[in-house]
């Protein structure tokens, strides 16, 4: 019996350092950041004068800068296109590979290898590929390739394009929205930042292999009998997918949305190396703004407020997921 109590003590000793480190460096630090976001700390010297939610109010206003509102719009643009891109592309590749094609391993590796690479490398390469060129240099990068292939009409400014797609308040639809009390929707902050599409392309190149791998594993887990049964019942190949397979892999889609969604909220490295904040903050994101304002501008309180908001949104996405996966594990 004595050995058992000693073993218990040792087991605590083994995990205690990790528990303490996580308690301090994750939870303690989050608490400190949250506290800092309520203070006046805007220079190298810490200043913990309490200012309430002032820093948050400033983020959501257009004075002195509308940067955070631009960031939110860009994050929404990025998240939607990135999720749709990765899920559609990943699923399509998985369906193609699921047919037991020859050389499957090689194909799979080609679709997955970008995941092994740093976002910095990805950003450097894609910036070179998508550099549109200037009037001085002529077309460069992919625009040059389009020219050579006779697809010149596809050329555009890529990540240098500062245009937004949104409902103009003066347009007929904008006036109509204002009329029914939804005038707030007709604003450049509710829309699509076109420059962001370039970042989405690079990010999807890097991450779609991940959804492909998850879908492929799920497809392989569906018993052949189920497909056969549906075929015997006279279902076409398309119906087999729509009625049998898509519903069965729904949990994978949900995991992919959560994992990729939280990656898109945190996207930072790729923006740094590929575009920076872009023209009129067209490719700025909250994670970049936080780093910029905190470690370059010394606006610690404002940076802490952005970080806290970022954490809250990620937590809203991740906590239900963590609770449900760990709970189902306990039940099993």
């Amino acid at each position, binding site marked *: 019996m004595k050995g058992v109590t000693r073993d218990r003590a040792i087991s605590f000793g083994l995990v205690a*350092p990790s*528990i303490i480190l996580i308690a301090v460096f994750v939870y303690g*630090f989050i608490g400190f950041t949250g506290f800092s976001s309520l203070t006046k700390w805007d220079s190298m010297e810490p200043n913990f004068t309490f200012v309430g939610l002032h820093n948050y109010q400033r983020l959501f206003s257009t004075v002195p800068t509308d940067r955070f509102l631009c960031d939110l719009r860009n994050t929404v643009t990025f998240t939607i296109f990135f999720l749709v891109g990765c899920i559609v592309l990943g699923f399509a590749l998985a369906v193609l590979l699921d047919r037991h094609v020859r050389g499957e391993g090689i194909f799979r590796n080609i679709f997955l290898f970008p995941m*092994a690479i740093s976002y910095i490398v990805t*950003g450097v*390469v894609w910036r070179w590929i998508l550099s549109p060129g200037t009037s001085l240099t002529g077309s460069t990068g992919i625009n040059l390739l389009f020219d050579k292939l006779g697809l010149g009409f596809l050329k555009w400014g890529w990540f240098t394009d500062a245009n937004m797609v949104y409902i103009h308040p003066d347009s007929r639809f904008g006036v109509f929205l204002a009329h029914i009390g939804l005038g707030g929707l007709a604003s450049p902050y509710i829309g699509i930042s076109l420059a962001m599409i370039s970042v989405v392309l690079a990010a999807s190149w890097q991450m779609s292999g991940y959804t492909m791998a998850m879908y492929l*594993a799920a497809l392989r887990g569906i018993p052949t009998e189920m497909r056969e049964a549906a075929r015997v019942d006279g279902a076409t190949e398309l119906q087999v997918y729509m009625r049998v397979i898509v519903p069965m892999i729904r949990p994978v889609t949900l995991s992919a949305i959560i994992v990729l969604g939280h990656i898109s909220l945190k996207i930072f490295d790729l923006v740094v190396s590929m575009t920076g904040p872009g023209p009129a903050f067209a490719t700025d994101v909250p994670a970049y703004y936080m780093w910029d304002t905190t470690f370059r501008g010394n606006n610690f309180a404002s940076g802490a407020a952005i970080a806290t908001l970022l954490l809250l949104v*990620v937590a809203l996405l991740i906590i239900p997921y963590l609770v449900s996966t760990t709970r189902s594990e306990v039940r099993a």
Partner: protein
Amino acid sequence: MTALVPRRSVSVVYVLLCLACVLYLLPVYVLLVTGLKSFQEVSLATMWKFPSKLSLESFSRAWSGAYLGLTGLSVNFMNSVYITVPGTLISSLLGSMNGYVLSKWRFRGANVLFPLLLFGMFIPYQSILIPLVQVLQTIGIYGTRGGLIFCHVVYGIPITTLIFRNYYAAIPDELVEASKIDGAGILGIYFNILFPLSLPGFVVVMIWQFTSIWNDFLFAVVITSEPSLQPITVALNNLAGSFSVEWNVQMAGALIAALPTLLIYIFLSRYFMSGLLAGSVKG
């Protein structure tokens, strides 16, 4: 009819797959073609053309060239090695111990503790950076490679613990119980039974940690400011951000930065896959 349709659909599948491969390999083509050109041959108009003569000039300049105020990447490559290797080893060992206790010596409260631990791998690190810098400055390891290793070890705990816990959970409890009856203690069981069985688990965790530490940029850029101490991701970003550096040197630098993790991926892709799927919290 039954014979014709499948054959046509199979060739359609191949055409689509090959098309996708071309798209996925396009950046690799650009990297290689640009990096392997000599300086005389580099021009914007010929960026998609194959070099007429292969030249390693860009690689040697990116690697060692004291290039317009920037030091060569060789220093930073070695920094990455010095940071990644110890970081990977220490965090794997910690994860293995945690995983062992959490799977075979479950204590009360472990069910609450585990999700709390896991949450640490999903947080945006922006939410801990401000106090992190303050604390590292106070301990005196801010701006050092040791400080960066420390961060990677601490924030690597959740993922390494998760992978090892799932790995050890698959090892039958009877094995542990039987050794307990034979009088083996907690450490004896770990070193004599679990550890020798964990080699594949270690490979998965070490690949995962190596890749994420090597590829890290956020911690590196915030914690190291001295160019001679910065890892390769930060140095590559600086190299690429400087307008005076030609594209072919940038591409050569990008290839150098990507090479270690790419090689690991090419030779150990099977283990890379299992780490990837474990990373999505699939029990």
